[in-house]
């Protein structure tokens, strides 16, 4: 293996670490939110430093790779894609941090019937499955798996759109849950953004492997 291929492999590995780390942050944030486990939420908050450090390491490695190895064709697409993927994953980890902050800052847990009504767990499961898809797609350079997330993101979008009316109805029924309902609503919004970011990652994986630009192309 030549030096450039070796450096590329290191960046690829760091990209995979970032994928696994942000998935882990998101999973822990979900667990902490559903069980109102402030210790677990603290763990997510503390791990944010690791996410930021990895983000900076990848940025620096990419800069070095471009400067020293003048990548072209698939190498160039790889490095361009990984910079964007890294940015998207860092944003996802930020959302996990935000969700965990609610758990630490707010005393009350979210009523179970409210969580069930907005299909919160289905939303989270869909996002986890999308995450599995992009990890597999990235690791095995599998464009077909990357494309699976587009359909799944629509499920996330529908849950997000419906959540407004559902939460409004629940508040009308019981106005003592306003604070919890608003927290849930904002977490749903965060997850909707996470879905979009995972979609962006899938688009970048497709661009890097097939040189096809899919963003802004699909029908809404």
């Amino acid at each position: 293996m030549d030096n450039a291929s070796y450096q590329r492999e290191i960046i690829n590995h760091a990209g995979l670490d970032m994928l696994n780390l942000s998935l882990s942050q998101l999973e822990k944030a979900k667990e902490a939110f559903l069980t109102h486990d402030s210790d677990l939420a603290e763990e997510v908050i503390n791990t944010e430093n690791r996410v930021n450090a990895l983000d900076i390491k990848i940025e620096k490695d990419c800069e070095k790779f471009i400067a020293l190895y003048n990548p072209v064709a698939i190498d160039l697409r790889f490095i361009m894609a990984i910079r964007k993927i890294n940015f998207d994953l860092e944003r996802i980890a930020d959302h996990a941090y935000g969700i965990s902050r609610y758990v630490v800052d707010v005393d009350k847990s979210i009523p179970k019937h409210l969580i069930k009504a907005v299909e919160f767990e289905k939303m989270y499961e869909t996002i986890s499955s999308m995450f599995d898809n992009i990890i597999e797609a990235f690791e095995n350079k599998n464009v077909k798996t990357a494309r699976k997330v587009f359909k799944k993101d629509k499920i996330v979008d529908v849950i997000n759109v419906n959540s407004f009316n559902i939460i409004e109805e629940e508040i009308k029924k019981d106005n003592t849950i306003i604070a919890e309902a608003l927290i849930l609503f904002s977490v749903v919004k965060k997850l909707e953004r996470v879905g979009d970011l995972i979609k962006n990652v899938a688009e970048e994986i497709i661009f890097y492997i097939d040189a096809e630009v899919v963003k802004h192309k699909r029908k809404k």
Partner: protein
Amino acid sequence: MTLDKIIDPALKKVPKIEVKDVKVWYSDFNAIKGISMDIKPNTVTAFIGPSGCGKSTFLRLFNRMNDYIDGFKLDGKIKINGDNIYKKKINIEELRKEIGMVFQKPNPFPKSIFDNVAYGLKIQGINDKKFIAERVEKALKQADLWNEVKDDLKKSALSLSGGQQQRLCIARTLAVEPSIILMDEPTSALDPISTAKIEELIFELKEKYTIIIVTHNMQQASRISDYTAFFYLGELIEFDKTKKIFTNPEKQQTENYITGRFG
């Protein structure tokens, strides 16, 4: 019509050079194995490929420099400005007035700077001193060397630096006003500053000339050329716009070569 066709004015022009199914042999060795390509006027085309792939042989077909090599044989057609340059009645001196060449190592004559640039005109039988002086000045200005040598035109060309010598050779080529310039690794013996000057020059010259450059430097090919041709084992593997070759080439062999995975 695609957007590219609307914005690329060169596409509207007829080819400057047309190559149809060209095969070259050196005795039994088949150096070029059936290549066809059109080169558009006022473009820079880079020929890339590993050593021995035939790119220099192919370049030297355009001014018939391979004719002197023992056992050279050509099959196929090469037209420049619509004329078959391998037809029997071709005037090779006239052809070489049309096609200038710059080599890997600067090769000034052991004469003064002025005489080097004036050489091509003098062997054409031009005696008008004023005319020659004007042409020499114009060529040196075009080659971006005038300001550095205007007070020392009588000095030996061999006293110039390598980069200056190469620009002098370009000026010598330009003085006879060709329309095509062939460059065979023109910067491989130069430092980065001299290389940058030659590259800048190529960019400026494109307006008036059709330039073909053989280079082993991938970054140079991507920086300066409009089109890139990748040769391998005597075949033209891929020929396309440089931006296409260096972002998403069609052929795996091309990608492997430009990313340094073989060659």
